[in-house]
C-alpha cells in the first residue's frame, strides 16, 4: 500500500469520525442559516449568548480545539493538518453547522501571536482566544492616519517597567464590546516613520480607556473612536521587539485582507435569481436587457474570482509562492462585493430602498451602504493597487 493511499484512508476515517461527532454534538439550532447579527457568536467576558444552543456549541467545539482547528493543541487549538482542517470545514458545510466562534482574535491577532509572540504571551492569550473568553479589537487607524497608517501618533512612553499610552484610535470595530486591544503605538519619533512603531496588547478595562460609538450611513454603529488618556501598559505586553511593530502590523493586515476579500464570495442568493423574481422574464430572458447584461457580467466576474480564490488556495497547498496575492484578492473581492450590492439595489427597486429602525429581513439598503466600507477598511482599493504596483509588478518608485 502506498503512503498516499494510506493517508487517504486515514483522512476518510477522520471524515467519518468528524461527521459522527458533529451530528451528535451540533445542536439543531446551530444548523440554521445565520439570520441576524445575534446569530454570530463573538465570545468575550461579556458574551451574550442568544440561547443555550449557541453556548453549548461554542463549549463543545472549544473543548476539541475546533474553534481554531489548525492552531497547536498546546494553546487550545485542534492541531489538525491542512487536509484534516479542510475535511472539518467540508463536513461542517455539508451539515450546515454554523461557525461556533467569530473573532478578530482568531482571524487577525492569533496568527501574529503564533508567529511573533514569546512563550508567555502565547500561553497567556491564545487559549483564551480559542475558547472565546476574551474578545479582541484592533487599534490601527487614527483620525490623522488612515491610508497613511505609518504616520500614526498614538504614543507609548517608556516609564521603566511600563508604558504610558496617550492618543486616539478610530474605526475600532466593536471597540465598545471588546475586552482587549492590539494596538499600534509610536515609540520613536526619529528616523523612518515605519521604524518607530511598536505593537502593544492591553486590557480595555485599563484606567484611561474610553470609547465612543460612531454612527454610520448604514444606521449601524459597529465602530468606535477609542481614547487613551495616560493608560499604563506593562512592558511584558509588547509583542515582538520595540520599534519593530510595523512588520507585525503588515503580517496581520494580510490576514485581514484575505478575510475582507473573501466576503465577496459568501454564499448568498444568486443575483440572477433575485432578478428573475423582481424584474421578470420575457421570452426566456430577463425583461430588461441592459440590466441582464450587467448581471451576467457580474456573475461571470464573481465566478472567475471564486475560481481564483480556489487557485490561490491550491497553489498555497502545493507550496508555491502566493503572498503577493492578498492585495489582489482584497481589491478585487471588495470591488465585486460593491458591484453585487449596487446591482441588488437596482434589481429590487423601491423594495430595496426600505430603511429604518425596524430593519426588514433583507436589510438591502443597509447591506448596500455597508459594502462601501469594504474597499476602504483594511487598506483602501487604491492602497492595494499601490502595493501590487510595488511588490508584485516592481514598478519604479512605487
Amino acid at each position, binding site marked *: 500500500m502506498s503512503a498516499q493511499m494510506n493517508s487517504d484512508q486515514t483522512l476518510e476515517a477522520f471524515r467519518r469520525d468528524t461527521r459522527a461527532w458533529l451530528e451528535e454534538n451540533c445542536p439543531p439550532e446551530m444548523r440554521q442559516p445565520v439570520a441576524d447579527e445575534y446569530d454570530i457568536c463573538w465570545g468575550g467576558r461579556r458574551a451574550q449568548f442568544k440561547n443555550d444552543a449557541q453556548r453549548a456549541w461554542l463549549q463543545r467545539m472549544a473543548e476539541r480545539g475546533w474553534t481554531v482547528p489548525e492552531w497547536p493543541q498546546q494553546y487550545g487549538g485542534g492541531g489538525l493538518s491542512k487536509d484534516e482542517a479542510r475535511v472539518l470545514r467540508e463536513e461542517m458545510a455539508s451539515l450546515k453547522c454554523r461557525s461556533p466562534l467569530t473573532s478578530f482574535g482568531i482571524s487577525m491577532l492569533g496568527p501574529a501571536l503564533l508567529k511573533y509572540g514569546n512563550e508567555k504571551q502565547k500561553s497567556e492569550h491564545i487559549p483564551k482566544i480559542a475558547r472565546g473568553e476574551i474578545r479582541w479589537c484592533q487599534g490601527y487607524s487614527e483620525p490623522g492616519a488612515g491610508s497613511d497608517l505609518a504616520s500614526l501618533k498614538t504614543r507609548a512612553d517608556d516609564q521603566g517597567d511600563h508604558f504610558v499610552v496617550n492618543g486616539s484610535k478610530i474605526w475600532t470595530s466593536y471597540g465598545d464590546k471588546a475586552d482587549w486591544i492590539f494596538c499600534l503605538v509610536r515609540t520613536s519619533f526619529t528616523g523612518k516613520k515605519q521604524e518607530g512603531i511598536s505593537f502593544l496588547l492591553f486590557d480595555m478595562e485599563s484606567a484611561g480607556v474610553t470609547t465612543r460609538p460612531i454612527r454610520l450611513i448604514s444606521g449601524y454603529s459597529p465602530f468606535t473612536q477609542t481614547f487613551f488618556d495616560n493608560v499604563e501598559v506593562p512592558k511584558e505586553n509588547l509583542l515582538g521587539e520595540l520599534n519593530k511593530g510595523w512588520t507585525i502590523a503588515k503580517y496581520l493586515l494580510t490576514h485581514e485582507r484575505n478575510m475582507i476579500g473573501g466576503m465577496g464570495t459568501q454564499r448568498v442568493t444568486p443575483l440572477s435569481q433575485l432578478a428573475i423574481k423582481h424584474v421578470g422574464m420575457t421570452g426566456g*430572458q430577463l425583461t430588461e436587457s441592459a440590466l441582464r447584461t450587467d448581471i451576467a457580467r457580474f456573475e*461571470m466576474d464573481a465566478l472567475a474570482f471564486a475560481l481564483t480564490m480556489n487557485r490561490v488556495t491550491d497553489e498555497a497547498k502545493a507550496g508555491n509562492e502566493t503572498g503577493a496575492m492578498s492585495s489582489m484578492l482584497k481589491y478585487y473581492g471588495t470591488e465585486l462585493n460593491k458591484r453585487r450590492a449596487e446591482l441588488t439595489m437596482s434589481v429590487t427597486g423601491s423594495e430595496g430602498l426600505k430603511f429604518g429602525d425596524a430593519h426588514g429581513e433583507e436589510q438591502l439598503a443597509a447591506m448596500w451602504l455597508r459594502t462601501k466600507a469594504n474597499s476602504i477598511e483594511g487598506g483602501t482599493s487604491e492602497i492595494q493597487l499601490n502595493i501590487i504596483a510595488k511588490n508584485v509588478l516592481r514598478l519604479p518608485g512605487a
Partner: protein
Amino acid sequence: MTLVLTDDQLMFRDAAKRFAAERAPVAQLRKLRDDLDPVGFSREVWKEMADMGWAGVLVPEEHGGVGFGFVGAGLIATEIGRNLSATPMLSSAVLAVTALLQGGTPAQKETLLPAIAGGDLVIAFATDECVRHTPYHISTLCTGKHKLNGRKLHVLDGHVADRLIVSARTSGDIGARDGITLFLVHPQASGVTITRSSMVDSRNSAVVELRDVVVEEADIIGTFDKGAIVLDAVLDAGRAILAAELLGVAEESFERTLNYLREREQFGVKIGTFQALQHRAAHLFCEIELVRSVVLRTLQALDAQEPTASSLVCLAKAKASDVARIATNEAVQMHGGIGMTDEFDIGFFMKRARAAAETFGDQYYHTDRFAQLSGY
C-alpha cells in the same frame, strides 16, 4: 482536481515555451506578412511542432498522438499567444481533431488522425456564414444525394487545407440546431472555390464557396441531421483554446508594457513612477490573474467532460477576449507614439487580440450565452 499544473504539464509547458520563442517568435509572423508568404505559416516549423507533440496533442496515442488533452493544448496555445506563432494548430489540431474524435467513423479516424498528428495533413473547419459568429445560422444546403451549395466565411487555414470539414443544412430552417450535418470535403473537388482573405492579424483566413459539390455517405462526420452535437463540441474546443491563446497575448503584452514603464523616462523620471499608470497596470494584473484561473478550470472541465463545461467555456472566452482587449489597448497607449509604429511589435498583439476575440464568439456573444445557459 486542483488548479495547479502537474509536473508533467509543467515540463510540457516549458518545452513549448522554449520552442515557440526560438522557432516561431513574433519576428517570424512579421516576416511571413512582409514576404506575402503564400502558405501563411512555416511548413517546416509546423513539422517540428508535430514532432514536439503539438499537432497530436488531442489525438490519443492509439491514433499516433500524445493525448495530452485540452489542458495540454491550452498550454501550447498560451505560448502561441505569447509569441504570435503562426500555425495551423487551432484549425487542424483542435477543431478538426475534435470533430473526428467526436463524430469520425473508425475509417476516418484511422486514416486522418495519424496524418494530422504527424503534421502531414491540414484539415480546416468551415462553418461560419455570418460576419458575426452565429453557429446555427447555416444556409449552405445539402440536397439530393448529396450536393452542397453555399458560402463559408472566416475559414481558418482554408486556403492551404488538404481537407475541409463543412457544416451544411440537411433539413430544418436556417438558425435551427436540428438538421445540420458535417461533411468531409476535398478542396480540389469540382465546385469548390477557396479565396484567401487578408486579415488584420496576418493570420490565415479564407472564404470557401461550394457550388454543386458532390459528397458521399462515407464523408459524413457525426450523425446525419444531428451534426450540431459534434459542431457544439468543436466550437467549445476552439473557444477554450482561443481563450488560452488570448491569455498568452494578454500576458506578453502586459509584460512588455511593464518593461517599458520601467525604462522609459519623461519629466526626468521613469514613467512607471506615475500612479495613474501604476493603478491601471495593477488592475490589469488582477484581471489577467482571473483569466489564468478560468482558462485552466475550463480546460480541465473539457478534459473531464463535465456537464457545465459550456458555461465555463463562455466565461473563459468572454473574459479572455475582454481582458486581452484591455491589455493590448493599454499596451499601445502606455507605449505612446512608438506603440503606433509598425516597426514596434506591440501593435501585432492588439491585432491578434481583436481577431482571436472575434473568432467563435466575442465577449458580447459569450456573455449573452452565459446568461442563457444560466436560465436568464
